[in-house]
């Protein structure tokens, strides 16, 4: 009878999740042996592995908080869980319980914590953005669907999709300052470049609502089209792009005129909008019905390329090298990695039900409301300015396995 292999590396990684080195070794696929009822020691490279374990443990102790640029956090919005995906093995390596129906996530202004909103549990969970460990929770945040910090780091704003309101909290202590009841289904938000307003799309009442952060009142409302969702504040500070999920286009709204001045066709179900790494003039627009992602030039206001991404692409994030996007496929219960150069899907990973928000630890993450820190040049130095010991480990250990 065929026996399933026991991946000892994977077991080790689970036992000591904080042990980044073991994690990297497991990811590299070391120590994979075929099992009997228990794995047979005769087939097990005991000496080599003991040496490797000793080295691993030693190095883990030496570098306990080493960064893991391989970590991807995926929120399973139809569950009460998040998936941790390893980008190297392209597998879900952990699934953790959090509050129910987590949809979106956002880094705190200092970038030290990743905030997740659990909408039906009415709470925020704070993770370590590097290790993914839970640090703290804050309760009584009513229906925190979409989250955002004002670029000055002063305000924390939530859009309550189910409860039809926008809440403004003090970012320093998450104390509620203002609740603004709105019409129907506030879904996405963006802050204006001058820090003065937060713009919110109303997916049910087809509006764009502008809220003044100083007075904390709605200052204007504009009809923008069917089921508006994702927003992108243009670099000129004068216009904003709105993804229209009920249409096949992105609307360009002039903030001074407070109206739509142009529609640009992208694809059916145009939904969310993300700035390309290091480039404010190009954004990606997910078209959920067409199953495509449009590369959109914000200066010419036109689509310059289209990437096929079947399965209703929703949220995405960029890898630290900026070469790949990882996209959530809500109803397919998967995330896919797409190479931006070849436009090909390079990996598909099974996660939980209705994966929505996604976070990749790195300089190009879209889950950042404030200006990113100086950008390193490649993947391996994304979190640590110089090559870390875990990155060197495979080379160090390679002779053991020859």
């Amino acid at each position, binding site marked *: 009878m065929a026996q399933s292999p026991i991946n000892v590396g994977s077991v080790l990684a689970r036992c000591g999740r904080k042990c980044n080195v073991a994690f990297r070794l497991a990811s590299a696929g070391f120590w994979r042996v075929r099992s009997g009822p228990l794995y047979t020691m005769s087939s097990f490279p005991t000496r080599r592995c003991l040496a490797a374990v000793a080295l691993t443990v030693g190095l883990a102790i030496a570098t306990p908080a080493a960064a893991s640029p391989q970590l991807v956090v995926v929120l399973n919005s139809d569950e009460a869980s998040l998936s941790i995906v390893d980008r190297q093995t392209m597998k879900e390596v952990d699934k953790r319980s959090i509050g129910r129906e987590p949809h979106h996530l956002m880094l705190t202004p200092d970038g030290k914590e990743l905030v997740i909103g659990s909408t039906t549990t009415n709470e925020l969970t704070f993770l370590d953005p590097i290790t993914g460990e839970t640090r703290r929770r804050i309760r009584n945040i009513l229906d925190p669907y979409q989250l955002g910090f004002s670029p000055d780091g002063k305000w924390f704003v939530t859009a309550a999709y189910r*409860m039809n309101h926008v809440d403004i909290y003090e970012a320093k202590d998450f104390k509620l300052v203002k609740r603004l009841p709105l019409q129907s289904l506030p879904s996405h938000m963006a802050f204006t470049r001058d820090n003065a307003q937060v713009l919110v799309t109303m997916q049910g009442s087809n509006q764009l609502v502008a809220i003044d952060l100083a007075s904390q009142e709605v200052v204007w409302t504009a009809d923008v089209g069917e*089921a508006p969702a994702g927003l992108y504040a243009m670099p000129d500070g004068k216009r904003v792009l709105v993804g229209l999920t009920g249409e096949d286009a992105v609307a360009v709204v002039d903030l001074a005129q407070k109206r739509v001045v142009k529609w640009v066709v992208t694809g059916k179900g145009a939904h969310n909008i993300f700035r390309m790494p290091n480039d404010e003039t190009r954004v990606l627009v997910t078209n959920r019905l067409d199953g495509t992602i449009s590369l959109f030039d914000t200066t010419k206001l036109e689509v310059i390329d289209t990437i096929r991404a079947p399965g209703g692409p929703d949220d995405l994030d960029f890898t630290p090298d900026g070469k790949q996007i990882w996209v959530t496929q809500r109803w397919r219960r998967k995330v896919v990695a797409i190479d931006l150069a070849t436009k090909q899907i390079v990996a598909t990973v099974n996660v939980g039900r209705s994966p929505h928000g996604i976070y990749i630890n790195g300089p190009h993450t879209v889950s950042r409301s404030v200006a990113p820190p100086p950008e390193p040049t490649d993947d391996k130095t994304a979190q640590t300015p110089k090559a870390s010991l875990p990155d060197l480990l495979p080379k160090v250990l390679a002779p053991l396995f020859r």
Partner: protein
Amino acid sequence: MQGLIDIWVDVQSWILETVVHPLLFRFGYMTFFEDAPFVVETLMLGVVQIGVILLVFRPLERLAPAEQWPDRKLARVDIVYTLLSKLGVLPFVVFIVLYPVNDWLQDLVRDNDLVLPTVEQSVPWLRDKPLLLFATYFLLYDFAGYWLHRMQHAFPWWWALHSLHHSQRQVTCWSDDRNHLLDDLLASVYFAVVALLIGVQPGQYVVLLLLSRMVESLSHANVRFGFGRVLDKVLVDPWFHRTHHARASAAEPHIHDSNFGAVLPIWDLLFGTSVYDYKRRPTGVDTAEADADNGKGWVGQQIAVAGRLARAVLATFRPRQAIRPAE
């Protein structure tokens, strides 16, 4: 297992991408875009349930019937109820009607800042134990269901509605969904309130919810077996629920006011409403008015029961006498 999940998700995705989403887009209902996967999955689960009824429960009814009938004419209307319910027609109507009610409830919570602690917030130890957490929610919902069922029997006006479920003289595996539309609506409002009070179950347990619906269909099946004298204290079986559907008589005027549990009999054991005498009794009601439901079609029954409700409301000050059997 992952293979089965993949097939399930592939079928769901195909239905969504080729049928549902284009229709929503075409007719401007993209507001419901995010709800579509749930609706499609509910339909798929309904198809699976109907398949299990046809392929498992019906053969069991043929093999070992509890009651022998010359024909199953009276049971046919229950097939209509099952199809309308499990294929989403009735739930859709309930959803449309309840939409404003749900909005009102949500606003009530928001405007009064009624953020109640959820189970896992009250008992943080349960946070990292999803199966135990689910079991807790399942217990709470089944407990809520038990008391809903008791209210359906206790209030004369509600019994006027619920007596339709009991009036069937040929209770079969199709009978679980035989309910008046208003009865379904009231139950939905009740569970919406419960959901707001204690939270809702995470979607990943949809398979277990399917199994609970299966238990309910099986408990209505016309079969003469149970789960044994130990297991039938754990899970509702056909013997247990058939007693609940027993026709009242002068000797046992309240026999149907027993065994209210839908999935777990523990509530009946705790609150003294369980009957485990393993006697075979005919099913149905002993009042001519409700018994007249037999022989009517779906529309006829809905109209007749609406009239019964109206009379019960008018007779509020003379509760139960005109409606309840054997009183």
